[in-house]
């Protein structure tokens, strides 16, 4: 069980983090491009998860 005094968010200092994303360029380069035509943003059920598992997810290709 978590004690109440332990619930303070553990916000880590930037020096403690290996995060590479502190500016816009590095943030945007951290995304995997979705370059497959089957990720159709007009698909009414698509959540654009990008995983490539459409058949399992929304059943659109069943």
């Amino acid at each position, binding site marked *: *069980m*978590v004690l*109440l005094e*332990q*619930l303070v*968010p*553990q*916000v*880590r*200092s*930037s020096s403690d*983090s*290996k*995060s*590479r*994303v*502190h*500016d*816009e360029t590095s*943030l*945007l*380069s*951290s*995304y*995997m*491009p*979705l*370059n*497959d*035509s*089957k*990720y*159709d*943003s007009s698909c*009414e*059920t698509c*959540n*654009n*998860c*990008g*995983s*490539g*598992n459409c*058949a*399992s*997810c*929304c*059943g*659109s*290709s*069943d």
Partner: protein
Amino acid sequence: MVERKFFIQWDSTNDCNLECTHCYHNREGKEHAKHSQIETSLLSLDEVKSMIDDLDRTAKKWNFLPRFQISGGEPMLRKDLMEILDYTNSLCMETRLLTNGTLITKEKTRELYHRGVKRLQVSIDGSRDIHNSIRRRPFAYDSAIDGVRNCADAGILVNVSMTIMQSNKQDLEDVVKSSIEAGAGIVGFQSYVPDIKLGANDPEFVSAFETYKLYQEIRNLRKKYKNQIKVLETEVLWQIMQWDTKIKREARETERFLSGCGSGFSGLAVLSDGTVYPCRRLPIPIGNISEGIAKIMLGSKVLQDLRDFDRLKENGCCNDVYYCRGCRAIAYAVTGDYIAKDPMCFKEFTKLEEKEPRVIRR
């Protein structure tokens, strides 16, 4: 090139006509609720429009499609809701409502539809008695089903959403069947985030092994009702049960975010007073929306941590971290550390033969 979506999920009001046992507002304490329900602390219409403008501008600048998700409380109780929808509609912004469904009359569905709401989420958490017990109102189930039916009649796609807890885990098929009967097009299931004060001792908490068995049941329901409704497999842990793909391999090799939990990458939660959380289920304030989306996304140390795949792996996440990451809110609720391994991760229970083959179109 396909564009990702970047969303804001906004608590339009804290007012609600129900009193759900698992509602965030009840958990976050009377102090927060009291503060947020003061009329002057709610974002004004002008402030809401500024937030929407910021979402539209920032998402497009970053090559995302903006999506605005209006939650609550109960969003139908927000007095200027229709004016807000007029505004998002004028920007052609995809806008969804997350509602308990009980106030969606035939007249309201027409108003919503003509303001661009083409998809809407209604929460149904079990069979009639279970749902009413969880919602603590005797009318909740029948009113919600009426709301789903009214939307379907008006041409609004309804996504029924069920949060799986100990008290309703036996009702999955009941929810699927009632969703079909009411005309919903989609049904999805969400994991229960335990009360942070109780962690894994929360009596509604579902263990990793139970989650695994429930996911198997959901997959069977998806097959059984595939011609009648789409049963989603979109929660982050579904990645464990799905086949590897070329794009997943590329994400692992290049150490880039593909999918899964969106906190830190593809969305923010905004409370009724403008306070920003990484996710509505991860109650750590990281700023106020008046500071701007870009500043918060780039400057928040919490979000930087959430994007730190190396640290997540050091904490026990596997190499699927680029499209899974588990649920950061559940990790935080159970361990107090938002980059700990998701305690509901059931990867150790999976077997290869239980993974579903799929056609790779490449």
